[in-house]
């Protein structure tokens, strides 16, 4: 009853301030957004499997639909039809809350990613801060999901996840700060616009390249991918934190992982590779600028995603203490020094401006 009431109040407030149509349009946009990312996540899974296939001298999925494009849809259907299994000794509330938190955190971060000029759900002045805040919520879902499922392997995985997330947020933050120093704003569109003439990767030359590498490494770590997939570590922990999940619970975790990969790549493309801007402005005069923007943006994102996949299918997994050594002894000091150098460069205006 209380819930109903509070929802009503919220609804009334929305209707009074903005009108019913505004609410409906918002809801429609949200639905399109979610649908788009569900499909995009599935396509990313397909892409991953294809790329893995070619790396491993295989073909990858090629039977369902043209070029096997429908393979992951078929897999998703299979997962939906599976029995939802809750372990007898599990803490049911936490067990179920786990995957919702993970998927919601992943989807929330999508809100501030600019796909093209004007194509962005939310553009507010602390967009970058929002992303780094929201993306660290996901680990909470992993932790309580693993705790709730009462499995020692899950718990080991979740503990590793917490450790990893706390550590690597720092160096990712320093890499982002290097960009913020150049852009002078936390607003996502502002950052892209600041790269009008030169991408930050080239504008900030050496420190920006170092920041980009740190960002890629800590981004890989935050998405729990090889070489930092200790959280799942299938040869050590079975499946890590989602050992006990089946059906859609597992699918949510899986989808969240891929959406997180998309977010990290999108963030990298926005911060370092000029977001939706065309290289050298080659498509600037053409009509349908929003479409070109999206094409360039997605292209850059896919290059980064491919890089992450290349890492994944080449490297062995790192050990937990080496993970911390890498962060605290290498990435963090380098990131700190790099930030100082970057500040110096910005202060002296030694940035490279082409055009």
């Amino acid at each position, binding site marked *: 009853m209380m819930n109903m009431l509070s929802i009503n109040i919220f609804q009334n407030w929305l209707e009074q301030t903005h009108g019913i149509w505004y609410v409906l349009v918002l809801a429609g946009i949200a639905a399109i957004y979610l649908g788009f990312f569900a499909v995009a996540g599935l396509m990313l899974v397909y892409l991953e499997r294809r790329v893995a296939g*070619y*790396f491993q*001298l*295989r073909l990858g999925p090629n039977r369902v639909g043209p070029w096997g494009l429908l393979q992951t849809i078929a897999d998703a259907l299979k997962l939906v039809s599976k029995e939802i299994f809750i372990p007898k000794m599990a803490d049911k509330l936490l067990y179920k809350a786990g995957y919702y938190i993970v998927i919601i955190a992943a989807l929330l971060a999508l809100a501030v990613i600019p796909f093209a000029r004007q194509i962005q759900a939310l553009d507010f002045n602390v967009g970058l801060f929002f992303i780094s805040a929201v993306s660290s919520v996901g680990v909470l879902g992993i932790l309580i999901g693993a705790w709730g499922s009462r499995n020692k392997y899950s718990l080991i995985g979740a503990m590793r996840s917490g450790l990893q997330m706390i550590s690597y947020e720092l160096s990712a933050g320093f890499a982002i700060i290097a960009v913020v120093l150049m852009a002078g704003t936390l607003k996502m569109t502002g950052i892209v616009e600041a790269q009008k003439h030169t991408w930050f990767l080239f504008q900030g030359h050496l420190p920006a390249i170092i920041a980009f590498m740190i960002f890629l490494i800590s981004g890989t770590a935050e998405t729990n991918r090889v070489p930092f997939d200790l959280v799942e570590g299938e040869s050590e922990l079975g499946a890590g934190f989602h050992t006990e999940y089946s059906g859609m619970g597992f699918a949510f975790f899986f989808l969240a992982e891929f959406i997180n990969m998309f977010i990290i790549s999108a963030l990298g493309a926005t911060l370092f590779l000029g977001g939706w801007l065309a290289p050298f402005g080659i498509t600037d005069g053409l009509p349908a600028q929003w479409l070109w923007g999206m094409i360039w943006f997605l292209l850059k994102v896919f290059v980064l995603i491919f890089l992450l996949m*290349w890492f994944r*299918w*080449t*490297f062995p997994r790192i050990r937990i203490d080496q993970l911390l050594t890498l962060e605290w002894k290498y990435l963090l000091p380098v990131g700190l020094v790099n930030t100082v150098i970057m500040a110096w460069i910005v202060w002296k205006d030694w940035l490279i401006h082409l055009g």
Partner: protein
Amino acid sequence: MTYLGKILYGIKTLWTGMKVTGGYFFPNITRKKYVITRQYPDEPAVVFPRFKGEVVMWHNENNEHRCTGCQACEIACPNGSIEIIWKREVDPETGKKKKMIDQHIYHLSMCTMCSLCIQACPTNAIMWSTNFHNATYDRGLLTKVLNKPGSKLMAGVEE
């Protein structure tokens, strides 16, 4: 090694590994140059003539086989996969009673493909077939009778 040297060395080794996988990946996108997948039902499986698929009994065009029913294969078999049911029948030519096989039963489900029965056979009646499509839904179907119905012993084998 210095601090920076370590970092550079690490990046170098990682890049060396990435070059190997990348060297396979990029030719694979366009030409599928190194792809080793054999897409089985579309492309036929490569089976070599000596492949040990299942034991079969050779029959000629007159539905005659070479098995005399001596049970050497049954004794040689370590798993009891072969059972021979034999009967005494009157030989139409000589008119004498004679030991002949009724059914040469072969349990494929128990066979370990050790070739001992084929080594043991004095008349080369049984041999390997390269057939490997042996999956069934019913385990009973894996028990086979090797001699075809109505078949008889080839003349001149017993000498």
